[in-house]
């Protein structure tokens, strides 16, 4: 490694790799947005990137100048055919020029950021590793953002297009805005022809009921495990987790048989009976972790003042643990909303479908793909909105109850 620790080697090396990463990212991004061909050019990326990386260590103060001049240079090179991003014959001049300017500006700026404080000559280990870490950080942001966003991007865009357009050019996700409300045709059809309004409502109230029933069971249980002393407390605390580890498919088989015999299959009552049981163990576990963190003194004061245990739970513990309740509710709601296996096995009657079961029923060769994706969007958007709104609770609750510092 020490052979690499010279500004004139580190700079071009990181610069070259970085240019290729950026060129690939921008090519993929532009291809997906415009539908025109863009493609990173490996050796040209390496060449220009290395040059840029060397410039960044040689002239460390020229960041702004470099951003502008590289952008201009890439446009000129682009029309001459020597830019790191290659375009196809059908690509419009505007979007080609845009991609080159974008690449030039971003690459120059970020290469300077990566090579910040690095001299041309020998680098200390500290400086070298800091540069590598900045490089990896940039790569990480691009990588994670891309892998998370692309599937969702494809989902949303597919739902707004139609099948023949998609088969013609699977990369063309550009929207024809002149179609107006016709863009949302598959959504309208879902709600008018495929009963998605009912599914949405079913999913919603099943999830809400599940949350209430789960809390009703889990709060007293969690309190008992967290606060009260009784024989077998430790064993019980562990067996909760053990139960959470039993795979659903193992239980689903006997439940299916039992429900078939009891006539509970194909009924929402059956679903509402079974969902909370799958969520009670995890809710109980999260809540007892939180209850343990609450100061026992407050409750003891309540007990001294003559409250009964149940009143203490109701008047002291619950108000104090509202944030935990919110996060547990959100988590349970998410599990119930996203649940697929039981709904798939137990529900056959289209008027009782939940959203996930409804989407599964759209998965046939007769129904066009955009309906499937529109259904997926309908199922995803509410839970995402809820989650983004309450994200703080969610992250805190998921981790705070369990991970002790």
């Amino acid at each position: 490694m020490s052979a690499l620790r010279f500004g004139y080697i580190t700079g071009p090396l990181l610069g070259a790799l970085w240019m290729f990463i950026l060129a690939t990212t921008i090519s993929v991004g532009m291809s997906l947005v415009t539908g025109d061909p863009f493609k990173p050019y490996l050796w040209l990326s390496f060449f220009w990137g290395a040059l840029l990386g060397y410039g960044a260590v040689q002239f460390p103060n020229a960041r702004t100048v470099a951003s502008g001049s590289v952008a201009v240079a890439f446009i000129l090179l682009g029309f001459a055919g020597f830019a790191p991003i290659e375009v196809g014959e059908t690509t419009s001049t505007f979007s080609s020029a845009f991609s080159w300017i974008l690449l030039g500006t971003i690459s120059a700026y970020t290469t300077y950021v990566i090579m910040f404080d690095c001299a041309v000559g020998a680098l200390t280990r500290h400086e070298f590793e800091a540069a590598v870490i900045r490089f990896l950080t940039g790569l990480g942001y691009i990588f994670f953002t891309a892998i998370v966003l692309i599937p969702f991007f494809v989902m949303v865009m597919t739902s707004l297009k139609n099948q023949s357009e998609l088969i013609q050019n699977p990369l063309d996700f550009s929207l024809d805005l002149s179609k107006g409300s016709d863009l949302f045709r598959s959504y309208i059809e879902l709600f008018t022809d495929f009963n998605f309004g009912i599914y949405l409502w079913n999913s919603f109230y099943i999830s809400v009921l599940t949350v209430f029933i789960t809390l009703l069971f889990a709060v007293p249980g969690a309190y008992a495990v967290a606060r009260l002393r009784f024989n077998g407390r430790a064993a019980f605390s562990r067996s909760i987790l053990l139960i959470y580890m039993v795979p659903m498919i193992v239980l689903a088989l006997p439940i299916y048989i039992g429900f078939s015999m009891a006539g509970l299959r194909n009924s929402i009552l059956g679903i509402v009976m079974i969902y909370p049981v799958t969520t009670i163990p995890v809710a109980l576990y999260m809540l007892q972790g939180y209850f343990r963190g609450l100061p026992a003194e407050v409750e003891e004061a309540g007990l001294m003042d003559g409250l009964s245990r149940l009143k203490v739970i109701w008047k002291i513990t619950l108000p104090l643990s509202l944030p935990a309740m919110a996060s547990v509710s959100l988590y349970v709601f998410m599990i119930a909303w996203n649940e697929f296996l039981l709904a798939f096995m137990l529900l056959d009657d289209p008027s009782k479908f939940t959203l996930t079961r409804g989407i599964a029923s759209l998965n046939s060769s007769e129904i066009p793909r955009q309906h499937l994706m529109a259904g997926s969007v309908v199922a995803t958007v509410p839970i995402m909105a809820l989650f983004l709104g309450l994200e703080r609770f969610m992250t805190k609750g998921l981790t705070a109850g369990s991970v002790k510092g």
Partner: protein
Amino acid sequence: MTTMTPPTGTGPLARREARLAWGLLFPTIAAVALVVILPLLAIFWISFKPVGLADLRPPEMVVRADIRGDAEAVGDEITVRYRIRNSNQDKTISGVTLTQAWPAGLDPQEVDERCEISGGFIRCDFGDVEGGFRDQIRIPSIVGQDFLDSGGDLSGEPEVTGEADNILTNSEFTLENFAKVFDSDEFWGVLGVTLFYTIFGTIGALVFGLFAALLLNKSFRGQGILRGLYLFPYVAPVIAVAFAWILLFDPFSGSANALLIQMGVTESSIDFFGQRPLALIMVTIFEIWRYFPLSFLFILARMQSIDTDMYEAADMDGASPFQIFWSLSMPQLLGILSVLFLLRFIWTFNKFDDIFLLTGGNAGTRTLTVNVYEQAFAIGNIGAGAAVAVVIFCCLLIFSFFFFRYGNQEDGL
């Protein structure tokens, strides 16, 4: 004078507290016993039973009663007809009888030898009825005035009794299910696929989670947004993201293939979810993609609770960033990483939905859990499915032993 000793045993207060605790826990215990313990026992029971999907509907007698001919005036001749059959083609139903109120004012002319009419009821006795049995009983009768006055029809539905031998409750046991599961060459392949999926899925999710946590373990503008964004795969419904992946990697109209061809990485389109061993790799990648947020969340929480003074001291002493990471952060993270590994390992082992939706267990991606579904519902052999489920459960017991043995309670989840 007696010596003072600390109190031993449980006092009334402690007993009251324990009683309250059990009272508070009772609803949970009852519900869990009903839906978890009972089905688990059931699955052990079923795994020793030769039972198929068709046996779930118990055999029963089906009877239809109707009247042939028009009853318009007194003296008309009509025929009361009972059509009776065994709904099951193989199973015998024993002690079958039929009972129905016989309408007043209807005079039976000739009664089938199996039946008798007395006291305003018709009773028929069929004895033991074989599978696939079907028969008719016709009773020609003369219409009287009372019959016409009461509407001229039979009243109510005929009642049938009869007992069938239920395969689920009888004492017939077999080891055939397990023999079938272990004998097939398939089983070891399925086990191998499960282990590959579990091990690489778990490690991958941990490594990517760690990397993402490192990225976000500093405060900058937009950190909250990115953190929310990186949790998307975990929060979205599995069915939605699974179909999005299928569409994205479709061999004919998938964007991924179009992109790869355009970039010149591949000549012809790749069937990502349809060929061995690529399909298995793809479902493992999907698993990593979907669950890295969970490990990311826990690792990030642990990182943020590490004291920063230590880092400053190390920085002053001239430690490089990688040295700080290896020698200071990693030891602190090992606890949460090992717990996450054990938990994720078990959960990935148990995972069913993802593979079921992506490939349906085809193209060499059938794991044990998918095999349960395959045996029980696709092939229709519930017993064999239950046997696979029992195998899964035994693996699970082994894992949880390790979990409780090595999962430190202090650090535990």
